[in-house]
């Protein structure tokens, strides 16, 4: 049995609080139902363990160096406690203080959130991953340091926790064991979510202590602001990629046309996640084909940041978030467009439409729309000649949390998928829509690829989604559907979700064993278009 520590155990001086056992993770259905042959979870080497903080569960998202002296440890704790104080200050945290206090004060500890969490349930119900375990740690730390008589009355007022180096270091890692999917907030009888508390903890580490995953900060927002894209793509590289994609579109469809770039007088600025250009170019290619065919007056941008919709600050840092969001708006203003359309990237939807709304005033309030609703409208206006039988394979639809649960866009993407697939071939996952489960790669996990973190992400946080996908295509519904020779697609209109699926499918060797693949949504529309001789989707092409 894996150990189930209580909240106070977080501060114990042991080398590692919990060791996961692959056999005790949530069981999976056929063909992964043999518990004795579960894939291993990669362990750090002894040399890495000597250097890097992994005392929570043996995994490391942050690659924190272990302090060498007691003074360094004490300083680490002091900085964190100071940072927590700033979370509670109107001056330092004006944007989030109100919602944070509601979440800290009104939780009745009913634990309804626990069963809603795919990390907790997927892990085989490990106590440390229970959503409220993490939130309760922050509540106790706040009570201890920031309530009258906190330390003195600790035992009586729920502030009974030893705040030492281990407590804070484990909490830092624990802040990266939640995907910020907000399913817990939807399950809570009074709407208290743990995701925001998690993000506030991440924020203290980043803004007060300069601690954040390399992939999100140094190789993420910092690179985004410096080069124009988190991928490092410069405007010259963007131009080269567009040229290459124009050629590819011609080869695949016979259509030769220039993609509009920096077009003055365009109505719409279309912003993609730049990862698409490099990893899934067929996605921006499909957008270009559809917008060209529909005669949309739009443009892409080659300005710094104008060709990369991501905003990783959403996941860990308010300052970095605001810098990126304001640049995106400035690019749209300079072009004079009437509206921004966001490509198939879930967190970019949340960043620029919802969260940035708090910092956009006056003429910065440029309308923003999801590509899902925009495309549903184009499809339903009959602008494309579609033959659903061209998508002659089973499909299911993954709901990106940020678009579906957060923004309430549920139906348009379903209408699109139904319009481009043969009757009976589309099946829903259970549950879906606003009750969907996160892909497991939310909040940046899909791109956090160092050391053994990918194994945790694929086997633990991605487990529930993988189970749902298998069940959607599962033998209960149709006996032969998991036959590997029958291609089937998870439609996942989000770069991050696709990245996670690529990882999970590879970890479980799913395409070879079950024939399951993933795709974006626009590719499926183009694949159904009767204008082209050749199919646009190629099940043999795996990247």
């Amino acid at each position, binding site marked *: 049995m894996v150990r189930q520590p209580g909240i106070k155990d977080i501060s114990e001086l042991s080398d590692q609080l919990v060791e996961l056992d692959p056999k005790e993770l949530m069981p999976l259905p056929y063909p992964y139902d043999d518990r004795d042959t579960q894939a291993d979870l990669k362990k750090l080497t002894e040399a890495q363990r000597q250097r890097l903080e992994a005392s929570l569960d043996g995994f490391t998202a942050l690659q924190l160096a272990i302090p060498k002296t007691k003074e360094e440890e004490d300083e680490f704790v002091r900085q964190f406690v100071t940072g927590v104080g700033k979370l509670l200050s109107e001056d330092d945290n004006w944007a989030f203080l109100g919602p944070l206090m509601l979440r800290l004060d009104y939780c009745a500890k009913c634990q309804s959130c626990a069963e809603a969490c795919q990390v907790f349930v997927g892990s085989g119900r490990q106590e440390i991953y229970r959503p409220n375990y993490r939130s309760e740690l922050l509540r106790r730390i706040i009570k201890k340091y920031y309530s009258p008589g906190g330390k003195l009355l600790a035992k009586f007022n729920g502030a009974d926790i030893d705040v030492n180096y281990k407590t804070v270091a484990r909490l830092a890692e624990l802040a990266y064991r939640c995907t910020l999917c907000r399913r817990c907030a939807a399950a809570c009888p009074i709407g208290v979510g743990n995701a925001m508390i998690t993000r506030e903890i991440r924020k203290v580490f980043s803004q007060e202590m300069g601690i954040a995953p390399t992939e999100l900060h140094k190789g993420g927002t910092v690179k985004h602001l410096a*080069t124009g894209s988190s991928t490092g793509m410069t405007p010259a590289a963007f131009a080269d990629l567009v040229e290459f994609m124009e050629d590819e579109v011609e080869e695949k469809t016979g259509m030769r046309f220039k993609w509009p770039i920096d077009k003055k007088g365009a109505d719409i600025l279309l912003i993609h996640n730049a*990862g698409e250009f*490099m990893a899934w170019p067929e996605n921006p290619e499909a957008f270009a084909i559809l917008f060209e065919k529909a005669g949309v007056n739009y443009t892409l941008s080659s300005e710094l940041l104008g060709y990369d919709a991501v905003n990783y600050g959403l996941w860990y840092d308010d300052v970095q978030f605001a810098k990126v969001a304001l640049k995106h708006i400035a690019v749209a203003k300079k072009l004079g467009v009437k509206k921004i359309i966001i490509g198939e990237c879930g967190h970019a939807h949340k960043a620029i439409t919802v969260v940035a709304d708090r910092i956009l005033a006056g003429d910065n309030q440029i309308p923003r729309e999801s590509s899902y609703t925009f495309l549903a409208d184009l499809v339903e206006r009959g602008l494309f000649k579609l033959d659903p039988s061209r998508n002659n394979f089973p499909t299911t639809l993954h709901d990106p949390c940020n678009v579906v649960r957060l923004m309430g866009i549920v139906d348009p993407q379903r209408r699109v998928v139904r319009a481009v697939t043969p009757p009976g071939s589309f099946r829903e996952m259970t549950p879906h829509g606003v009750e969907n489960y996160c892909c497991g790669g939310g909040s940046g996990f899909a791109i956090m690829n160092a050391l053994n973190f990918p194994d945790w992400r694929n086997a633990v946080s991605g487990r529930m989604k993988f189970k749902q996908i298998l069940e959607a295509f599962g033998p209960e519904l149709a006996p032969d559907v998991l036959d590997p020779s029958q291609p089937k697609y998870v439609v996942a209109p989000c770069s991050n979700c696709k990245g996670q699926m690529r990882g999970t499918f590879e970890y479980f060797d799913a395409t070879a064993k079950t024939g399951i693949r993933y795709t974006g949504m626009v590719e499926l529309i183009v694949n159904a278009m009767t204008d082209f001789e050749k199919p646009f989707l190629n099940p043999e092409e795996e990247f």
Partner: protein
Amino acid sequence: MALRDFGGQELEIDEDGFIQDPGQWNQTVATVLAQDEEVPELTDEHWKVVNMIREYYLKFGIAPMVRKVCKDTGKDLKQIYALFPSGPAKGACKIAGLPKPTGCV
């Protein structure tokens, strides 16, 4: 960040063994990195891919998209995987001295 010896030259590498400064790359470095990626010997065919990736990176600051690698070297994806078992992004780019890819790729 750790230091690693590449035939007498000490270079900084990240936790996954990618070199940090592509400017310090040379053929010896490539040969050492190839050992980590299940490529015991770099043949002319390997070099064709490695050099193409490196030249693209020096010009544009990013790795070329996989399909461009295939097109420019005249190889299909299966052939690339046969040369670099850990794949174009993890294997070939690492050997070509590129830092670990960033962003949602």
